[in-house]
């Protein structure tokens, strides 16, 4: 089909472009609050059910209704489903963003738009093909009522898409049936709209060269977002107190926790084996977690950057008074309020050393919904074992987008680790109880719980205290305790989840990343391998860093450190917390608010491995630019 820019009316012919099966990306541009979200979710689910590795990234505005919103879908047979910023097809349903959407499609690509109204000349690109479907007109003809017409238009474009890229119509129908099993009328009009879009496209256009083909679905995978998985982790870990203050993108974690508890922790008569506290703000939420943790319950909160700021005084208290608690930070784009509906890894430094004075905190870095589940369970064990706040550092991309992730499994032999807690039995063994005494040299002192025994009673305070828990302003009494805190974290360092390392033969360079950067980094590493640059991968799962992390860094002449933040915060942590010298740590950074893509990584890495580089890319691997050359 000719890229003459004239809307393609004739049947497009396949010759020109070789068929690309299960390997392309497209973007759907709509307006939020119009029902497009469910239509897009439907598309993702259907492709997923066809057994094809797929990802969907929701790029939505920080408001409730009426602003532009996008949904980016990538299918990739070899499982590379990190964000793909180059789009073969745009479904342009929002006239207010036509121009930017038109320019976003790759040369040779397609634009599916609503031609109920003609397209302005200025939007015509010679190198792309326009596929006009009069969705609005059709829906106005076939449906009654403004609301139905708006909603059904979404299903109609799903139909058109199905026809054009080969989405399985039967699976779509199954999906709709599951969704509207109890809403017959809705189901019918959905079917109708689906058919309208599908038939019109079939009639007027040949299927596009980018096609979906069903493959054997892999039962080992599920489609889930990270906040749901993390909430499941909290339930499975036996957390009973969830305290929070609403904030995007952390809210859905708590919503899921409360839904799951209604399902798994509520008696028929309505009594609950959990408490769900919506606090008045993040300071209070942190205080509630600490109060409950001190009392001996497993407690947690979920928040984002601004909440971490507000919690920092309490975090320092928990660190110094040694109180367990789990803090989820679902990172969003900062600083300040920043872009609440965009992603970033910008809170690493804030979390590692949160609160004034000498502090240091345990942080876990899930890289997928699957890991959100397993690491949240571990977080509670670690918090109680080390009697300190533990952070689970996720982000908007993992937390709020549906990911294709391995099916979650549970080892029924698992029992929680409550750490060193002296109950009456243990107290009977000792003469007097000393709260902050390290008897076995691991830096961890035993604690007691209120209400158990007078013998175990002690006074908890954030002010100076000695190893007996007594108030002190004495040099040695004070120092002995803060020195033990260092020792305690040294003990933790060795038992925290280690890095995931993948080595290739004959590599010189290593690449380090954490969290949601993993997929893009793996894809980049495969591409690099094809180009003859074998690179080892180390994905970090915890801070402080283990000896293994240190070794990996020492073993490589060049180490690329991938950061989804401006200042190379992961690199800074590696420099501070390992023995490696920083010169060889090359910073690769992406921080515009979108999820990381392999392109971003390559842009940072290639100029070093293939020195004939363009400058633009070059700057990206310099040390974070605030460091003098």
């Amino acid at each position, binding site marked *: 089909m000719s890229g003459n820019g004239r809307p393609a009316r004739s049947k497009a012919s396949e010759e020109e472009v070789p068929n690309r099966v299960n390997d392309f990306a497209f973007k759907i541009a709509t307006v939020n609050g119009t029902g497009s979200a469910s239509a897009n979710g439907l598309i993702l689910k259907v492709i997923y059910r066809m057994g094809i590795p797929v990802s969907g990234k929701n790029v939505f505005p920080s408001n409730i209704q009426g602003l532009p919103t996008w949904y980016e879908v990538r299918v990739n047979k070899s499982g590379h489903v990190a964000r793909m910023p180059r789009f073969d097809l745009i479904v342009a349903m929002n006239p207010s963003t036509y121009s930017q959407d038109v320019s976003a499609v790759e040369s040779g690509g397609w634009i599916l738009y609503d031609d109920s109204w003609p397209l302005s000349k200025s939007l015509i690109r010679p190198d792309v093909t326009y596929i006009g479907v009069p969705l609005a007109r059709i829906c106005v003809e076939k449906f009654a009522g403004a609301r139905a017409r708006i909603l059904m238009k979404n299903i109609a474009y799903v139909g058109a898409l199905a026809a054009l890229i080969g989405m399985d119509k039967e699976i779509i129908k199954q999906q709709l049936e599951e969704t509207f099993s109890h809403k017959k009328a809705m189901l019918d009009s959905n079917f109708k709209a689906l058919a309208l879009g599908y038939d019109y496209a079939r009639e007027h256009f040949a299927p596009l060269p980018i096609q979906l083909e069903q493959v054997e679905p892999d039962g080992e995978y599920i489609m889930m977002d990270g906040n749901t998985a993390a909430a499941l982790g909290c339930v499975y870990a036996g957390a009973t107190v969830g305290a929070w203050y609403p904030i995007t993108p952390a809210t859905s974690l708590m919503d899921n926790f409360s839904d799951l508890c209604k399902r*798994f922790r509520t008696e028929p008569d309505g009594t609950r084996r959990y408490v769900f506290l919506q606090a*008045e703000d993040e300071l209070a939420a942190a205080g509630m977690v600490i*109060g409950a943790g001190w*009392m001996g319950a497993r407690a947690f909160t979920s928040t984002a950057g601004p909440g971490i700021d507000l919690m920092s005084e309490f975090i320092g208290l928990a660190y110094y008074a040694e109180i367990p608690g789990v803090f989820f930070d679902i990172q969003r784009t900062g600083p300040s309020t920043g872009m609440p509906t965009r992603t970033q890894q910008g809170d690493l430094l804030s979390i590692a050393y949160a609160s004034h004075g000498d502090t240091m905190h345990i942080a876990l870095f899930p890289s997928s919904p699957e890991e959100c589940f397993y690491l949240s369970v571990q977080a509670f064990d670690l918090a109680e074992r080390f009697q300190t706040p533990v952070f689970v550092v996720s982000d908007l991309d993992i937390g709020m987008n549906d990911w294709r992730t391995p099916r979650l499994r549970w080892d029924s032999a698992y029992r929680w680790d409550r750490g060193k807690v002296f109950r009456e039995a243990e107290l009977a063994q000792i003469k007097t109880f000393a709260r902050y005494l390290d008897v076995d040299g691991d830096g961890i002192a035993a604690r007691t719980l209120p209400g158990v025994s*007078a013998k175990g009673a002690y006074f*908890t305070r954030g002010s100076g205290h000695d190893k007996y828990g007594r108030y002190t302003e004495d040099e040695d009494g004070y120092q002995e305790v803060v020195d033990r805190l260092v020792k305690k974290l040294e003990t933790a360092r060795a038992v925290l989840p280690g890095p995931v390392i993948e080595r290739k033969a004959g590599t010189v360079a290593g690449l380090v990343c954490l969290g949601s950067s993993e997929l893009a980094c793996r894809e980049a590493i495969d591409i690099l391998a094809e180009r003859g640059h074998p690179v080892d991968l180390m994905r970090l799962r915890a801070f402080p860093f283990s000896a293994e992390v240190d070794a990996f860094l020492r073993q490589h002449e060049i180490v690329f450190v991938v950061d989804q933040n401006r200042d190379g915060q992961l690199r800074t942590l590696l420099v501070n917390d390992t023995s490696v010298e920083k010169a060889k740590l090359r910073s690769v950074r992406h921080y515009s608010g979108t999820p990381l893509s392999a392109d971003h990584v390559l842009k940072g890495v290639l100029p070093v491995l293939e020195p004939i580089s363009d400058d633009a890319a070059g700057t990206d691997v310099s040390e974070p630019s605030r460091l003098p050359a």
Partner: protein
Amino acid sequence: MSSIAKPKILTQKTERNALGLTRLDYEGGMSTLCAGCGHDSITAAIVQAFFEMALPPHRAVKLSGIGCSSKTTAYFVSQAHGFNAVHGRMPAVAAGANAAHKDLTYIGVSGDGDSLSIGLGQLCHAIRRNVHMLYVLENNGVYGLTKGQFSASSDRGSKSKYGVPNQEGPIDSISLALALGCSFVARSFSGDKEQLVPLVMAGLKHRGFAFIDVLSPCVTFNDHEGSTKSYTFIRKSRHEVTAAGFVPIQPEIAATYAPGSVQSVTMHDGTTMYLRKVAEGYDPTNRAGALGYLREHADRGEVPTGLLYINENDPDLHERERTAATPLRDLPFESLCPGGEALDRMMDEYL
């Protein structure tokens, strides 16, 4: 009405209560407050209330923020766990602790700076949640520990130690608590143990958030001429509304009072509290009435004291949240973790 002398009944330290414990068993560490500080008298009253009610010391939980007042939790019931939180943030810690264990006796001690400045939001929301605890605000109209700045409860025109009059209007914790629907609101004076001890006992019995604002002079920074929180000024401006005779007053005793002058309130645990009405026709169960009465008297420069409002029927945090009978922190893992099969079934929903 001295703030030091202890009522006769307790002069014998050796006297034992229902649990066979002596008063000593309810005392705490040596106070480091200034000699004569009102807070120490409140501590003594708390000790006495615990002793008289024969509460098991280790079942109590003491919480506070930061300030001279907040230090006092270390000075009573040393066999109970205590927690000095950060400044102004005790209510949240208390709510969390209480959420995790509903069956312990929670007592929070705070100051006017801790509660009405930095901690105002948390106090108001703890009231709103009706967290089951006794909250004692040791009100001296000044920041003691930081050496004498005005607090949010300092009255307009009240003079600082250096003679400067306060410009801001005060936040009256009582009107605030009433406006927020607090289920137990009382005011007393550190120098009046006869009134304070029963109020503390009633507060400890109350099912829900019991708020007691205790005027407690700071002898070092706010007990001078011109201060409206000095011993002298309080003594002459206070005006007793109700006297909560708690455990001591039994029906027969109550009967000895003139008809109508005693009002009985049935506490949530079934026990009855008898209120001796000192002020004509004051009804501590009528919130609207109380508010009006208080404002009237406030305008006359009077500070009404006693149990000002009580409502035993407001569900507390746990009743609202419908938590299980077993304290959450004591639930076994098996009753919390849904287990492998459940997970497997659930996974199918995400295929």
